[in-house]
């Protein structure tokens, strides 16, 4: 169309023909917390489309488990949610115990719950630190969180002999008894954790910019969260107090007195805050375990067969993992190996909703939303 001089004033009304840009975030990117890739289509600073790609860390966990016996496979399940290895071991052991009908001594149950809760605190500390870094606080929150994580890892090392992948649980109990002066050490650790929580709370929640960035960002209704398969703190942030430790109690969680923190809006701030509050409840659970635990006793079921064979059966054991519902579908058809082991990993299911959550937000917010889902790639990619 020719533009005549007298029509030039009209040209300003014509919209510029802009082109959407595709940027590739990951697999090596500080915000993806591992090897995860998302392809964002952006219009200026706005995200108009998002396509997540996973599988960079796929190790064939399920196939490997089918080819090892029940005892051997456990080490691989540590490496799913590698920030809370003990919690994964708990689920795995209980899945096998359900199939084989094995009981666990009471003292071992207490130890298991205690270790699981400490793992949960550990994992949530990493979330707080990494989330602060995602929002942009230059590593200060990260280092604060790391101080407490180191102390928890030191305790794990003393108890199990390894920090990240302890393989401490056994089918029918735990490997070895607790070290001496364990109780006083844990009590000191819990005090330190609470101090660390207060520090992080002051640094992040007390920061105006942090609150302004997170509050009201990406709110979600309970119904939509359920339909998308979102569980764990992200679901509780929408206001639904659904926690498998209460809804379908397992282990000795029915004896524990703790609350389920919930949010209201389901926005990014609530997801952060639910996790922060949850850690305090975990501290309470560990304290109860310490005072109620039998001071001595068996830690491993003495009637275990030398080689575990399970004739048949199937089970779907689900626990409240650190990121949500951590479920294992296990099937046995005779022999010393599991016939099928399927992991329902909370990060996988939460991440599958990413596209819907991210589209329509700023690029900077997309990073925060991804951070607020708190994914662990070992769990997503299996």
């Amino acid at each position: 169309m020719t533009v005549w001089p007298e029509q030039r004033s009209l040209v300003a009304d014509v919209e510029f023909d802009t082109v959407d840009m595709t940027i590739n975030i990951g697999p090596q990117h500080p915000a993806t917390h591992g090897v995860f890739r998302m392809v964002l289509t952006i219009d200026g600073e706005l995200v108009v489309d998002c396509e997540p790609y996973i599988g960079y860390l796929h190790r064939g966990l399920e196939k490997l488990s089918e080819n090892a016996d029940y005892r051997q496979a456990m080490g691989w399940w540590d490496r799913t949610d590698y920030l809370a290895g003990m919690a994964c071991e708990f689920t795995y052991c209980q899945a096998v115990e359900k199939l084989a009908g094995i009981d666990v001594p009471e003292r071992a149950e207490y130890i298991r719950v205690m270790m699981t809760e400490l793992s949960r605190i550990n994992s949530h500390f990493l979330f707080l630190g990494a989330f602060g870094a995602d929002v942009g606080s230059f590593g200060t929150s990260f280092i604060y969180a790391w101080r407490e994580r180191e102390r928890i890892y030191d305790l794990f090392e003393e108890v199990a002999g390894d920090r990240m992948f302890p393989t401490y649980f056994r089918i029918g109990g735990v490997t070895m008894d607790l070290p001496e002066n364990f109780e006083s050490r844990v009590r000191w650790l819990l005090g330190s954790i609470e101090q660390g929580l207060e520090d992080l709370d002051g640094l992040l929640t007390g920061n105006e910019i942090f609150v302004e960035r997170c509050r009201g960002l990406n709110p979600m209704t309970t119904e939509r969260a359920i339909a998308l398969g979102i569980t764990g703190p992200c679901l509780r942030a929408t206001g639904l107090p659904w926690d498998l430790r209460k809804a379908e109690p397992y282990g000795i969680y029915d004896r524990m007195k703790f609350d389920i923190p919930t949010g209201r809006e389901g926005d990014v701030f609530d997801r952060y805050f639910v996790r922060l509050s949850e850690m305090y409840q975990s501290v309470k659970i560990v304290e109860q375990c310490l005072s109620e635990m039998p001071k001595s006793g068996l830690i491993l079921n003495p009637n275990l067969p030398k080689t575990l064979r399970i004739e048949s059966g199937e089970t779907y054991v689900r626990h409240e993992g650190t990121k949500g519902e951590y479920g294992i579908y296990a099937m046995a058809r005779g022999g010393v190996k599991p016939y099928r082991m399927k992991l329902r990993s909370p990060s996988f299911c939460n991440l599958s909703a990413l596209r819907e959550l991210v589209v329509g937000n700023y690029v900077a917010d997309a990073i925060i939303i991804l951070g607020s889902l708190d994914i662990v790639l070992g769990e997503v990619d299996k």
Partner: protein
Amino acid sequence: MVDLSFGDTLFGFWNWVDAIIRILIIVIAMTVMVIYLTYGERKVVARFQQRLGPTRTGPAGLLQGIADAVKLVGKEDIRPHNADRWVFEFAPFATFIPVLMTLVILPFAKDWGVRNMTLGLFYVFAILGLNIVGIMMAGLGSGNKFALLGGIRAAAQMISYEIPLVLSLLSVAMITGTLNLNIIAEQQDRYPYIILQPLAFLIFFTAMLSELHRAPFDIPVAESEIVGGYFVEYSGIRWSMFQLSEYAAMWAFTVFGSIVFFGGWQFPKGGDWGWGWQLALTMGKSLTFIIAIMWVRTTVPRLRIDQLMSFCWKILLPLSLVQIIANAFIIVYGGEYWLLSLTSGIGAIALVAIIINRAFRRSTKTTGLVGAYRSLQVPAP
């Protein structure tokens, strides 16, 4: 024969020799300064984060900066295949040259700088705006989308914040009656201009953080989003040119700010104890500034781009305009200095009140947020 005084004449052979010697001194001082600013930043940030920072290289890690510099020079200079060659390779220098040109007119001690310019303040306004050219060149020439995003963010941010920055300095220039930085410093023998113009200082400090891409305004280089922004494709010596210009700009800005608002080399209550003390005063004032910048960096997260823009255009710009108008009325109608101090003080209180009000508007929703994790529910919105 040779007049080595602090002149502003352009002609004559010895004047040029003199200028070259002075520039050499400045360049060497700047290099040493930048090396120890990186070291200092690492140490200060480490202490804020309960770490030790560098300790291994030399006593207390003092040689760390030099080791880093040697390593960076030795690194391969990589140019991406799809980068625009000349734009890409010249961008670090285009970023660095304006910073060096700013350093040329700063009086570090009484009557000592490279050149004493009558239009010094104006010169700074003119030169600082050129910084953006190099950053845009890096962003567009790298052939990288993160760099493009970073460059565009930087352009939007720096051009926006240039306006309140310049206006805040203009309001000081209205009082001084001169644009010569040496004379501006000399005038502050009784009280520094921060007392007369606290609002201008607050606006200057905020805009300075933004111009330097420091937290909470580090949007163009956001590490967790666009992994470094415009310099993401650079390596080796060209990358270190960006670092050099960043830290040199920080130094130049803080020296400049301390001259305009704190009297630079001038003693607080007058008096003249020689150029050594004057240099120490200038540097002390600017280092205090720098530590404040680092403190902010370790504490606060990053703003989003729309929040950043609305803060500039809706709060800083109107306030600086109001201050200029108030100054104009007071000066034209022959008001006293205390009147300037009063109006600007009210303005500064207003700025703080606006910020706190924004915070308070939020915190009515979130009363008692800190420590609330001990209770069950997230506080009611």
